[in-house]
């Protein structure tokens, strides 16, 4: 694993919204190191979600370059990007985005299924990670039957189970109350310390910002402040 997990160089993204060009990201140079627990903050429309999409390969930049774990994203095919995301990036979404028809266990093991991990290993790893996120024994539950906090914990488990190099979390606490949010963040911080997995949050929740070790502030599509605590 490289020291610098994410490197961006003058990344720009322009959207075409009903014929009007919108500059969402206007030149971002950023380096995230392995093991960091950082927050990308800024008001709505500051470009942070777009930037997150760009560095996860879900979206392609209009200009500039992105290296993930030392590999330039621009040189990967769609299929390579799919595989790269599967193996190297864990996602946590604001709306949890669990597959509602799959059980907790099936949701978590989905990526391992795509990777072709044998069944027994999948089961033991699911059980292990569920213990870690405090949902031991919830294997056979269906997501719609869980509370928001529980669902997001499942999402964390899903993001982490395949041992990616980085976890990108887009407003993970937006739908949760402050108590649940604090507990979730503490849990993630704990996991970060224990496993050394890199976390990058996109958020404007103070609970997240308070716990982040580095706070990168975006405004109008550029980095306005970069503060390491």
């Amino acid at each position, binding site marked *: 694993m490289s020291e610098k997990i994410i490197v961006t160089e003058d990344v720009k993204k322009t959207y075409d919204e009903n014929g009007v060009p919108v500059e969402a990201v206007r030149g971002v140079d950023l380096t995230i190191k392995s093991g960091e627990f950082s927050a990308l903050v800024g008001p709505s429309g500051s470009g942070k*979600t*777009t930037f997150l*999409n760009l560095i*996860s390969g*879900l*979206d392609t930049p209009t200009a500039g370059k992105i290296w993930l774990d030392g590999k330039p994203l621009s040189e990967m095919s*769609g*299929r390579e990007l*799919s*595989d*790269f*995301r*599967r*193996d190297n990036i864990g*996602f946590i*979404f*604001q*709306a949890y*985005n669990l*597959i*509602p*028809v*799959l059980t907790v266990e*099936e949701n978590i093991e*989905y*990526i391992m*299924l*795509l990777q072709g991990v044998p069944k027994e290993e999948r089961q033991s790893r699911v059980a292990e990670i569920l213990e870690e996120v405090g949902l031991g024994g919830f294997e056979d539950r269906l997501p719609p039957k869980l509370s928001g906090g529980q669902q997001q914990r499942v999402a964390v488990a*899903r993001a982490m189970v395949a041992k990616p190099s980085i976890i990108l979390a*887009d*407003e993970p606490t*937006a739908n949760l109350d402050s108590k649940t949010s604090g507990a979730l963040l503490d849990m993630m911080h704990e996991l970060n310390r224990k496993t050394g997995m890199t976390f990058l949050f996109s958020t404007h929740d103070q609970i997240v910002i308070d716990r982040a070790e580095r706070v990168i502030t975006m405004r109008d599509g550029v980095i306005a402040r970069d503060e390491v605590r």
Partner: protein
Amino acid sequence: MLIKLAFRNILRQKRRSILTIATISAGFAFGSISIGIQTGSFNQMIDTFTRAYLGHIQIHNEGYLEEPTLYNVIRGYEIIGDELDGFDFIEGWAPRLYFAGLVSVDEKSDAVSIVGIDPKLENQTTHFDGKIVEGTTFSSAPNEVILGKGLMDALDAKIGDELVLVVQSADGSMGNDLYRIVGKVDVGNEASNRMSVYMQLDEAQEIMVMNGQIHEIAIIIGKISRLNRYYEIISAKLQGTGISLVTWRAVNPNFAEMVDTKKGAFFIIQFVIMLIVAVGVLNTVLMSVLERTREFGVLKALGTRPPVIFRLIIVESAIMSVFGMIFGSIFGTAINLPMAHWGIKTPHSYDIGGILFDTMKSEVTVQTLTMPAIIVLFTALFVSIFPAIRAARTVPAKSLRFH
């Protein structure tokens, strides 16, 4: 995993899935029944028509059908007959000799076409006796003739009348003899009724100086639905004997064409049914794909390749189709079987090729299930391709951006 996911997705919208499966079943059953009725009634129609006289299969000497001349004959037909008797599936076979002549009853004369038949074999094959509407069939007495009813009227003849027949025999001489009219026959065909005189084959051969010679053998098989298979079997057996074997289609291409045209009309109905199924399936699949755009975005964000998502949608449609087909075939066969057994009376009898039909019969064959299955599966999967491509092309960034 894919199948598990597909199953769960189907169960997720129970009402919609049930409706879709019901639509597919209905389409399938309808297709199955209509194909059943189609093959059934057409086979029945063909059967009635061919059993009347034509036979299912005919044997002639090579080239006779193209140019039927008096001299293009089969010699030693009894040997062929022995071969035919060896097949269990043959219900009957009948030899015939055709020639023209002039008949007169009292003052009236007419040009006629004469058919020399073997009464016993003809009965087994085309139930000739059953078509006699007045008088009797041939007895063992010599010089008896049976006339078509139209001819009988044209000649003002009665049963028991004397009939003089003049023919030009195969050796050029003028043959003539005196006969007694013993019966009047209705073979179900206007033209034949107006023209034909039937007489015993051996007497026909004698007056024509054509001993042992015939022009045609008509064969009736047990099941007309197996015509092609039986044709091949007989064909293989009689190969190399210089005779030609044809099905009723070749003998009466007009009737075959008429049947085919009517069959074509049935296919249009089937096409419409399949269209309804297609629209039903398309609607369901398209709705469920649109609803799950976010989910496909997540799957793709997690690293699922597009073909996997494409397959997921197709598998979902396939599963619903399979269930639809299972229920549809149960439902369709449940209706088809009794209809095949008893048939339904049509409100009006209809005339095809001069023969009246008044019952519509269904038939249960492999086709009544495979044909709709193929069409249903094909249409269901075909209309799912577009939504499946749409799902596979979901852009995760877009579908996930707005929360």
